[in-house]
């Protein structure tokens, strides 16, 4: 099925030139869990065709409460395989490059990207990815969800460690928290929206300011400084 037939309903909200820009941009999604799965879904449905994904994990039962990629069919599959399969079921021409665990030596692979969405759940890993993006001058979309809350912002030169005031501190490599599906999906969706805005040349939320939300709060959304 031609690209134009599948994605023509994007036209209007975005121009044809904008659609072409999204199609041609190279997006990277690191982490394919609660936020990353929804971010990837949005990018593919926005018409992105060049995607680099990082995740070394497999789908497990503990993912079902919030992760788009977690289904009975994908249980125990590698998340990268589940994500690539889903993306190609939406757009078979989508080029998905699976990169495994983000670790030492991965930073170089980010240089191929135009925009990076960091949907990992560890601040220590986020610091590594953010710094690699900063050095390569690649826009870095930060997103995070915990419980009913979430944060999304874009770093372009500003240091993540400075924003969170964690420079030089020893960090735990894993978080331990519950996350609700509406919070994870919202964070991932907003991260994809910010990434698309970058591709389209539209305004984004810029660190150290960030967009916060809490699905249990009457305000729902607000902007504030990080840290």
């Amino acid at each position, binding site marked *: 099925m031609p690209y134009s037939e599948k994605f023509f309903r994007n036209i209007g909200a975005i121009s044809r030139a904008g659609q072409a820009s999204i199609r041609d941009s190279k997006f990277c999604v690191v982490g394919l869990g609660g936020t990353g799965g929804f971010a990837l879904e949005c990018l593919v449905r926005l018409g992105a065709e060049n995607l680099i994904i990082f995740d070394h994990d497999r789908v497990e*039962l*503990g993912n079902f409460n919030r992760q788009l990629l977690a289904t009975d069919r994908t249980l125990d599959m590698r998340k990268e395989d589940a994500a690539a399969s889903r993306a190609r079921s939406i757009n078979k021409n989508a080029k998905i490059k699976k990169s495994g665990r983000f670790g030492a030596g991965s930073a170089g692979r980010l240089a191929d990207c135009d925009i990076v969405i960091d949907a990992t759940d560890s601040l220590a890993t986020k610091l590594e990815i953010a710094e690699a993006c900063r050095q390569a001058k690649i826009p870095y979309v930060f997103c995070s969800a915990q419980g009913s809350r979430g944060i999304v912002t874009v770093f372009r030169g500003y240091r993540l460690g400075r924003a969170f005031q964690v420079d030089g501190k020893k960090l735990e490599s894993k978080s331990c928290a519950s996350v609700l599906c509406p919070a994870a999906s919202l964070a991932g969706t907003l991260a994809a929206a910010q990434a698309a805005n970058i591709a389209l040349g539209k305004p984004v939320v810029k660190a150290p300011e960030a967009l916060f939300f809490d699905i249990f709060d009457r305000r729902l959304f607000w902007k504030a400084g990080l840290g």
Partner: protein
Amino acid sequence: MDFYTLEPCATSNAFEIRFKRAVRIDLGKAEKALAKKGEVLARTSVVLVFKADDYSASVYASGRIMLKDVTRDEAEKLAGALTHALEKGGAFL
């Protein structure tokens, strides 16, 4: 069989046993091996969900084991005991 690592998970009070070499687990044999230790709540082709008095575990055919509702100390003891039971039952492929 002490060739595993224990990693905290992104969910609360859970730990994952990851084997240092690639192993797969025969869930049919795992079910028999674990039957004396508690109740098998469910078994599919890819996962076996097991509940004992004070913890629960998900055993995946791909070779991962998740221990839930445990502290690190408890997880370390359980990892050894479960791994031994699975090994004795011939569940590792």
